[in-house]
């Protein structure tokens, strides 16, 4: 009876929580990366449940069988030094489990660190996601557009998020599309995700970075490639360009809501590593092309678009959000 109280509560909670609730976000994946992670988690949960079962069965057996109240008056417990064989068993079996889990860990990590299977043929869509207190800037170098606090992506195509931060370390996380990665001020990290369903997903910064941390969320909207192209076109024709002054104002405003621009900040405020590459541009053109071809190309594009654009037109759906 005694000591099973906490256990009982545990099981009760497990039962209630697993049966009663809608699927937990992390275990409800909407893309291959999150799927790999969800499968890995569920695999490890089953292995761990097995281990827990062994421990709990032994525990309950020992506690029910060898209580002092059950023993004879004159029972004296024997002196047992240990057992070579038993101790070997509970060393070797865990070693085997750890080996299996190690293989799972390394393989699944390799899987989520590369372009997901089945999407290798198409070039990933590059989006720079940078954080500043307390918002997310999304720069699309290929399209030459930029958004704040929301990101639209095409479905069924790898999106390579290149992450960095204008300030404290943040962590870029869209749970239903895949696990997180840090955004730091002195390097660019990469996170490849694919959305397989057109839907709206909650994304957030998951690494504490000060006062506005709790509110540092964004919406990741996955849409069909056609819708995505239409949206890009709309932005390019209607949204204002992002000037250096405007960008600095953005950086210094804690909360700005949604914003949409028809040019990126990459040209005048380049990401940390690529910034170095660009300064090398005049000296060694070849390395530059290899390292940061995308960003240099798009800078040219941005300029063209800025020239030919009507900056005053603010009549599209997404820009209306910017006033919120």
């Amino acid at each position, binding site marked *: 009876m005694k000591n099973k109280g906490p256990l009982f509560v545990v099981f009760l909670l497990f039962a209630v929580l697993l049966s009663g609730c809608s699927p937990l976000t992390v275990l409800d994946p909407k893309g291959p990366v999150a799927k790999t992670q969800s499968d890995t988690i569920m695999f490890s949960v089953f292995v761990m449940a097995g281990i827990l079962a062994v421990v709990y069965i032994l525990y309950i057996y020992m506690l029910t069988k060898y209580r002092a109240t059950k023993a004879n008056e004159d029972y004296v417990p024997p002196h047992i030094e240990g057992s070579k064989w038993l101790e070997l068993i509970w060393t070797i079996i865990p070693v085997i489990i750890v080996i299996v*889990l190690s293989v799972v860990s390394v393989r699944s990590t390799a899987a989520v660190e590369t372009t997901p299977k089945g999407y290798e043929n198409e070039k990933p869509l590059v989006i720079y996601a940078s954080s500043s207190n307390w918002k997310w800037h999304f720069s699309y170098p290929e399209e030459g557009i930029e958004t704040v606090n929301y990101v639209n992506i095409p479905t069924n195509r790898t999106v390579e998020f290149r992450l960095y931060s204008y300030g404290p370390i943040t962590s870029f996380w869209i749970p239903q599309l895949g696990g997180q990665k840090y955004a730091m001020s002195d390097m660019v990290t990469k996170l490849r995700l694919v959305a397989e369903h057109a839907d709206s997903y909650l994304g957030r910064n998951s690494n504490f970075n000060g006062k506005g941390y709790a509110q540092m969320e964004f919406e990741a909207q996955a849409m069909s490639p056609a819708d995505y192209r239409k949206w890009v076109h709309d932005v390019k024709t209607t949204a204002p360009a992002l000037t250096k002054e405007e960008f600095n104002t953005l950086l210094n405003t804690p909360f700005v809501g949604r914003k949409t621009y028809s040019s990126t900040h990459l040209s005048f405020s380049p990401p940390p590593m690529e910034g170095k590459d660009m300064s090398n541009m005049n000296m060694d053109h070849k390395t530059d092309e290899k390292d940061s071809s995308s960003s240099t190309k798009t800078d040219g594009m941005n300029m063209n678009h800025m020239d030919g654009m009507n900056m005053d037109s603010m009549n599209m759906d997404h820009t209306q959000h910017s006033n919120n």
Partner: protein
Amino acid sequence: MKWDEFFVTGEPMIYAADICIVLASLAIIIGLTYFKKWGYLWREWLTTVDHKKIGVMYIISALLMLFRGGVDALLMRTQLAMPNMTLLNAQHYNEIFTTHGVIMILFMAMPFIIGLMNVVVPLQIGARDVAFPRLNAVSFWLFFAGAMLFNISFVIGGSPDAGWSAYFPLASKEFSPSVGNNYYSLALQISGIGTLMTGVNFVVTILKMRAPGMTLMKMPMFTWSILITSVIIMFAFPVLTIALLLMMFDRLFGTQFFTMTNGGMDMLWANLFWVWGHPEVYIVILPAFGIYSEIISTFAKKNLYGYKSMVVSMVAISLLSFLVWAHHFYTMGMGVVGNGFFSIATMAISVPTGVKLFNWLFTLYKGRIEFTTPMLYALAFIPSFTIGGVTGVMLAIASADYQYHNTMFLVAHFHYVLIPGTVFAVIAGMHFWFPKIFGFRLNERIGKIAFWFIAISFQVAFMPLFFLGLNGMTRRMYTYSPETGFGPLNMIATIGAFGLAIGFIFLVYNIYYSFRYSPRDTTGDPWDGRSLEWATHSPVPEYNFAIIPTVDKLDAFWFAKQDKKSLFEGKKIEEIHMPNNTGGPFVLGVVFFFLGFFLVFSWWIPAIISGVVVLILLAMRSFERDHGHHIHVEEIVETEQKLRGDNA
């Protein structure tokens, strides 16, 4: 600096705390004066070098800090109980979770463990004190100075607000301009020096001062765990000290070690912090394993199963603990190879830990299990800690960690490791060794009520967090919206937190109750113990053992009782050489407190003066002649007779 910047203003809760602090201080001062206890306090406690009294002071400080950290936890849990609560604003919440973490790990768990090891280790190895008793007092007063410095931050100047891990650049002057993180850097440096010296002290004590016949492999398991812990302290704490020193330079003197400009590396801080931080986890968990080993063996009335593999697994854990720090930031983008290495190393730790778990279970096998209060905590530890352990292995899988990292899942995991692991252990240890120090047991009935409140509330408070984490709730958010659906589980967790608080109240009440009503123990061995601490009287006389026992095997005291023999046979009482009390360590602690305080506020001239005083005190110590004192045979015989309760 203006006075309204010096004192924290604008928060009713802070004003209430101000009033409480003033009233409590007045009450203490008036009480001491009224009962004429100043002399007693100075002679018996502030100047003591007795390891038992120092241990008791550590434990009292730890209980006070448990209260402080617990209040922080209750405030946080109340704020999170429902969506959009407004009890705390973001800044206040950030300060509170930071101080909760720092206080619980560094000013509660550590001193509680160091307190128990101070009380128990010299007794377990049959020594009269630690190797360097005066240094031991310095350790305590430096810890205490650091703890007090850290604790005043919330009313004077503002608390640190960058998390207990104080990641840069968030903790840099640019993003955290208040003095809060200066407190962090200085208070931890000061108490860290104390901890480092404790590590040195106990390595020497255990290696050099064991009773005759007690070889390393005949040491009680708790002493083994402390030996290994002390070695980890000696290797890990210098890293923290240096990291904090660099942090202090960054914040006070404008260096750029961890900042965003001039080549500063924010992730260098994260690396240094966790190179200390992960071994730190084992600094607080290995002694807990030692405590459980003693308690389970005592109340199963059996020797510890697989003693050798217990020792080997602790050594293995201590080595591996230095090879896993990067699992705290898999998400930094180290790639497959880096993450793979740290993932495998981390999972490897589960093997020796599992060995220990099975050895405890098989210590129960064919035992005669008595469900005393300390044993209840030990038995609640096994299933709860196993959950903490297996979720740790889940977190070790790098790809999956990308989803757990920074979420409530992680919070649940480390509370499942630290509360059943460390907190249950120190509470169990306190109940177990209480009669040794004070000569009477804590009341079993109230102890069990407290236990059930704590054990059940713990599950209620932390089990929901696993699910909240998997549902996408991150740690350190001060609020959340109703649409997230986090509300109900958070409410359950908050109820659990208050249950824990009720358990804690029973625990403290039990100490008071037992002081007044508990029957006095005259045997010195109320639990039918196995190791040497039970071979002497309770309360333990100043010199611990009138005669140093001779040991020929593990659990020698137990076997001596079985064979109706004595460990003291064939030896006569001789004069005992003991160290003198000294006010030096206390004064040093006070000066260090002011040095730290002045540095926090960059008041250079007073800081320099305090620094010079520290150096003068150290210099004076090296010219001081102190040969200790001798306790004469007649005096010992008299004390022994009195403690034995006979007049002959």
